[in-house]
């Protein structure tokens, strides 16, 4: 099927497409001749209705005298990813930008500009995004930039925000240090009276060189770095990373481990969803609901710890499987907690539903329209509340998801209330998955023998974290190290959705709208 597709592409674009190779059956690479892939992208999107999942770059100057840009596509109904690899010559470090027609890649193209020094020509807003304006002219992900480089002190203006002009229009700067216990980022509101006219975001305050650091750590240690990409998604990111390495090295993970991973991934989802539902209730003044939600969350965190030795599920996933098996007592504790949680969760939903004033604040607040969600490439919970029918668990099954049936909730309304509803639905589905998985016979190996990881293999892995689609793309290097590790947290896609959703809402509703997305700053900034 893929070769027919390649022929169609070659007929249409001739010499532009150079070769096609399937690293594995669900991961196909298409090499094109030059960085201008606009026509190919246009064809894939309009003719085949493919979705551009992510864009990233790689510095291969020292082995192939070239940079590569990667464009990852997926298509409804097909489990395989198509990855278009476009060379960018070091003598002419630029590539045509796609952002004008495809706002979804706006930040990702600018990341390539900042981190690799490749210019996105024709970008509608080519300013820095991943490095702040007062950083010196460095490109940290280039191979000739050492990780430990000591940069000179800051000089000049940190970031210039667009002025908000007009009678009665004023600006409200918030952050990077916020009033609550949340991560740092700067929000600059332009408001006329109460309603927000325009929100400008300044992220990457928590940028800590993660992708670069992946190139330095031995692979088994890098698992712990993957767990620290976004703490609340430790297990999802850890699994995505291990999965990528396992694919690259063709390691077959025992079924027992796959089922255990599935259970833990769903536990992570439930924990965070219920906490978010409580937090959303708090932000509209319904603190009692949050007390119950955080109590329920704490119950699950306790189970996390019983199953993995860590409240955030850390130190459990490893290359080849998981580090420990579970005995009957642990599985019994899991089943008991799931049952108790399910009862408590029903009560919580009833409690929230009984509060008319809460419902009133959530409905029609912070609307993200489906067509905007599509343009911006919104994924995960926020995407599904705005008509984006995407779920990696169903579309590109990994771990043991193909063994279980579950529903993917999709709504069109796109307001806070529906982002809440998606979470509530997903919690119920996750409970079902865990119940089925915990009934399976969990015997046998839980960890495969891991051979030395072969060098120069590429692999993509995708995991539906509780926020949405997490992607890890790696190229292995010699001595159990990595040449490159690209991480895409769903938050990176979804921040622009917040900008869209707050427009016209009052500033007082910003916290609840923000919470309904609950994006990871660390996952974005890396």
């Amino acid at each position: 099927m893929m070769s027919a597709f390649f022929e169609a592409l070659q007929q249409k674009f001739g010499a532009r497409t150079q070769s096609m190779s399937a690293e594995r059956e669900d991961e196909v690479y298409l090499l094109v001749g030059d960085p201008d892939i606009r026509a190919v992208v246009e064809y894939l999107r309009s003719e085949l209705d493919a979705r551009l999942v992510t864009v990233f770059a790689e510095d291969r100057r020292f082995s192939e005298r070239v940079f590569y840009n990667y464009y990852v596509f997926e298509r409804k109904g097909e489990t395989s990813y198509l990855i278009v690899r476009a060379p960018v010559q070091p003598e002419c470090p630029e590539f045509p930008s796609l952002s004008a027609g495809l706002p979804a890649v706006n930040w990702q193209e600018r990341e390539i500009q900042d981190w690799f020094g490749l210019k996105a020509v024709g970008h509608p807003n080519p300013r820095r995004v991943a490095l702040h304006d007062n950083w010196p002219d460095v490109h940290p992900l280039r191979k000739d930039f050492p990780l430990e480089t000591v940069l000179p002190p800051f000089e000049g203006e940190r970031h210039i925000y667009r002025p908000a002009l007009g009678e009665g229009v004023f600006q409200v700067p918030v952050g990077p240090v916020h009033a609550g216990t949340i991560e740092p980022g700067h929000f600059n509101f332009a408001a006329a009276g109460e309603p927000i006219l325009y929100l400008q975001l300044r992220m990457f305050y928590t940028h800590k060189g993660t992708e670069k650091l992946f190139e330095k750590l031995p692979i088994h240690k890098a698992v712990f770095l993957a767990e620290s990409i976004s703490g609340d998604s430790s297990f999802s990111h850890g699994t995505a990373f291990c999965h990528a390495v396992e694919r690259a090295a063709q390691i077959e993970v025992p079924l027992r481990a796959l089922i255990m991973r599935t259970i833990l991934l769903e536990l992570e989802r439930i924990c965070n969803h219920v906490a978010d539902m409580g937090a959303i209730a708090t932000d509209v003044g319904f603190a009692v609901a949050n007390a119950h939600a955080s109590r329920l969350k704490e119950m699950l965190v306790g189970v996390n710890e019983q199953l993995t030795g860590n409240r955030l599920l850390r130190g459990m996933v490893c290359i080849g499987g998981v580090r420990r098996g579970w005995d009957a007592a642990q599985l019994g504790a899991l089943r008991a907690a799931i049952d108790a949680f399910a009862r408590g969760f029903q009560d919580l939903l009833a409690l929230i539903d009984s509060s008319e004033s809460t419902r009133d604040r959530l409905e029609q607040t912070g609307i993200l329209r489906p067509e905007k969600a599509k343009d911006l490439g919104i994924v995960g919970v926020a995407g599904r509340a705005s008509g984006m029918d995407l779920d990696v668990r169903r579309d590109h099954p990994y771990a043991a998801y193909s063994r279980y049936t579950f529903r993917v909730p999709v709504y069109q309304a796109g307001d806070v209330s529906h982002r809440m509803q998606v979470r509530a639905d997903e919690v119920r589905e996750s409970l079902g998955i865990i119940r089925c998985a915990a009934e399976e016979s969990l015997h046998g190996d839980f960890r495969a023998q891991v051979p030395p990881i072969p060098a120069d293999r590429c692999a993509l892995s995708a995991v539906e974290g509780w926020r949405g689609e997490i992607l890890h793309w790696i190229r292995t290097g010699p001595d159990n190290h990595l040449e490159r590790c690209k991480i895409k947290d769903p938050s990176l896609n979804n921040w622009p959705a917040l900008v869209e959703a707050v427009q016209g809402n009052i500033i007082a509703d910003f916290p609840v709208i923000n919470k309904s997305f609950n994006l990871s700053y660390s996952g974005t900034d890396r």
Partner: protein
Amino acid sequence: MFKILQKTFATGIVTTKYPDEPAQVPEGFRGRPSFDFERWKDARPAADVCPTGAIFVCDEGGSRRVTVDYGLCVFCGLCAEASPDQAIRITQEFELASTDRRNLVVTAKYRLNADHTHQQLIEMWCGDGDVEAGVKSIGQKAREQIHKLLRRSLAIRQVDAGSCNGCEFEIVALNNPVYDLERFGIHIVASPRHADMLLVTGPVTRNMELALLKTYQAMPEPRVVVAVGACGISGGIFGKNYASLGGVDKVVPVDVYIPGCPPRPQALLHGILLAVGRLKGKLLPDRQK
């Protein structure tokens, strides 16, 4: 309204008794790795697998110096799995907060064998004193003081200086009904101007350095700073690089260090209470003026 009250009464009290009673932690919980330095015959396998370099081996001439830094430890337990001599045991201890960074580091000096294993322990030390006086006793001391310390209220301003949000996950948990920080009169407040304590997470990114410094400067005196988690103490797995400064004390003076990745809520509470003691120390000289 009636439903809400009904639910509240049906739920009952869920708050833990910690610190009045020891914390109940599940069996598999990975706390402080404990080292039997006498028995330890080779530190290299553990040092090789440690993701953050918390176990560090340095050979000089005929001797070997092994340092174990709880300020770098992410409590993954790999060291215990990698050591064939069973000299490392994962305990359930989590009350590891210290007012002195040096007390989190244990150093042991060994005579070296020809095959590069160690022969015998020559000496070991922790911070200024011996190991007993260092790491182990800290928890106890704080617990004895707790009742005396809790007569006052405390306002905390939290700053994320580049954490992965794992520490925030646990700091938020401190406010849930189970840990209920406010029962001690401790509040997390919105402004540094109202705060006695700065609770800082993350390795301090280059981009957060200025914000952290400004937040600290905005606080009235006396003030204490608590560095949370492996990253806050030492940079943790991120260490020091082009974007990360490698710990809170590179930017502001730190009074208490709380190890963990992340520290569990009780460990945070323990560290916060330890810092309350420091704050009291800072208050007294003022009054004597």
